[in-house]
């Protein structure tokens, strides 16, 4: 129970810091901008981890969900919600973006019932390209020229709040019955089906939640840049998220945070190298994969990201004591 208090106080302190940094201008705007990108990247990576890491599928179209979220949220703030008080409607717009993305996630989850592995990868890839192609053909949202008119509503505290919500919900989901179902699908789908796991329901929920948070990240991204066009959400963006995910490690929320942080920071540091930035980055990735094929933090987790019940269980298993039933289920 002690750890709960520590986490609560830590989260509050983090929020205070995120509020104070822009308010008192402790860091220069460039660093603040990088921090906001970092938060968005963490949301993206953690949400992709749900499908790719915990459920073991290979989704390569995460930017497609992000695009849906970005466009829906931007349309809501620019065309639907009233001009005055737009800051108060902002969370609603982001939620709307997330829900729009979740709706498309539902559509993508249908082919995942039959197509698996590399074929599912193609489904998600095709989905990403279809989203981009549809957006390019929709003149209402500017077509290939893009969509603008959003105010810069994404601020550091908001990014922080959404990161916390994402990690909190994902953590609770991963250690719930559904999360165990996802891990079972990753290990062996047929066996898990035979054992009575409702694989379709588990898959739908994984895609829904993953797409929802990708949409949230898209909404935040759109209101940070104040301009979006379909080309921002192409397959290269999806690749970027995949790299952050596998850099950090699969099936680990802590790994997602580490991967997103390292990738974002390294990319900013390498910015000075100009054109060679994108040459050095993949080299780093290749070396990392050669020496640590599971990523930096693969299949490990920070103890503060594990519910204390599970933590207790793991400790007891490690010391080879018999696990008391009450605490395991309590």
């Amino acid at each position, binding site marked *: 129970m002690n750890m709960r208090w520590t986490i609560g106080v830590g989260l509050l302190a983090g929020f205070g810091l995120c509020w104070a940094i822009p308010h008192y201008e402790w860091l220069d705007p460039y660093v603040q901008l990088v921090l906001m990108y970092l938060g968005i990247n963490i949301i993206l990576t953690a949400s992709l981890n749900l499908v790719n890491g915990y459920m073991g599928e290979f989704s390569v179209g995460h930017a497609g969900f992000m695009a849906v979220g970005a466009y829906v949220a931007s349309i809501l703030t620019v065309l639907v919600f009233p001009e005055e008080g737009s800051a108060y409607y902002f969370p609603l717009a982001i939620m709307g973006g997330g829900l729009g993305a979740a709706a498309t996630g539902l559509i993508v989850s249908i082919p995942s019932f039959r197509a698996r592995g590399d074929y599912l990868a193609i489904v998600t890839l*095709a989905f990403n390209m279809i989203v981009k192609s549809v957006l390019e053909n929709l003149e209402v949202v500017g077509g290939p020229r893009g969509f603008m008119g959003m105010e810069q509503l994404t601020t550091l505290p908001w990014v922080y709040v959404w990161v916390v919500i994402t990690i909190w919900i994902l953590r609770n989901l991963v250690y719930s019955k559904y999360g165990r179902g996802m891990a079972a699908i990753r290990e062996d789908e047929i066996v898990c089906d035979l054992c009575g796991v409702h694989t379709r329901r588990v898959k739908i929920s994984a895609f829904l939640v993953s797409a929802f948070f990708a949409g949230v990240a898209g909404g935040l991204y759109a209101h940070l840049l104040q301009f979006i066009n379909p080309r921002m959400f192409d397959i290269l963006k999806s*690749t970027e998220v995949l*790299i952050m995910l596998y850099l950090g490690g699969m099936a680990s929320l802590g790994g997602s945070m580490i991967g997103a942080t390292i990738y974002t920071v390294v990319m900013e540091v390498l910015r000075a190298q100009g054109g060679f930035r*994108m040459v050095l980055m*993949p080299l780093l990735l290749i070396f990392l*994969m050669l020496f640590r094929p*599971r990523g930096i933090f693969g299949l490990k987790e920070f103890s503060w990201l594990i519910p204390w019940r599970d933590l207790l269980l793991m400790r007891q298993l490690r010391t080879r004591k018999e696990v008391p039933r009450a605490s395991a289920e309590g």
Partner: protein
Amino acid sequence: MIYFLQQTLNALQLGSIYALIALGYTMVYGILLMINFAHGDLFMVGAFLAFALATFLGWSFVPTLLAAMIALAVLGVVIERLAYKPLRHAPKMSAVITALGVGIFLEHLMLAFNPYPRHMPELMPVHIWTFGQFSISSLQVLIIGLSVSLMVVLDWVVMKTKLGLAMRAISWNIKIVPLMGVPVNRVISATFAMGAALGAAAGTLYSMAYPVIDPYMGVMVGWKAFIAAVIGGIGNIRGAVLGGFILAGVEIGVAAVLPTTFRDFISFGLLLILLVVRPHGLLGKPRVEKI
């Protein structure tokens, strides 16, 4: 009718290039069960190599093509040995991510040296034969003829030679085949070499047909070829060829009837429907899973 014939010819030309690249994907997948995402960028390197040889050395078509194919075969083997071989027993996804990394590396290395789109010089004089309103260029004949003959040669290698037998055996079971005395590493390297050489041929032909080349050209064409391989059933060599022609047919067909911006939408939509109906592609067989 004439319009239809003309478009069919265009589809055959594009389809043979897609098929050549798709073969590279499908061969590596058939053996290692790994998607070599760097393959589209090998295609790009092949095109640039052909451009460099033709522009700076002034070589004609045949030596350019051969040199590009040989150089790319070597590059393919080097990439396989350095980046993929150490990961053969690692989780499957690490190899795929490494391949993505290799692809991005090749693209941006090329971009760092050569940031501008380049114009491919003419490698050979082009004749255009006209029959009434129907016209056919010698370039189209060359592209389709050369691609088809390369595919026939490949099919012969895989189906009739000892090397092909070893490749098929490895794709059947990579754990048992080494016990029978098959040099697995050499066969895998040969597979990569052949795939990359076909990619280089595709790159050379593509840059002759659509003569503006840039470092990102491999991304879109590569993904399309990959989709072609999946349509045919990835791992199946004849399927890759079939998928390449089908995808090109759909793309050209859509572009002929609707605005070109709908091309990707329709072709990927068809792909999605196909995968829902036949999750293992047209010619692919579902792998039996044992518990």
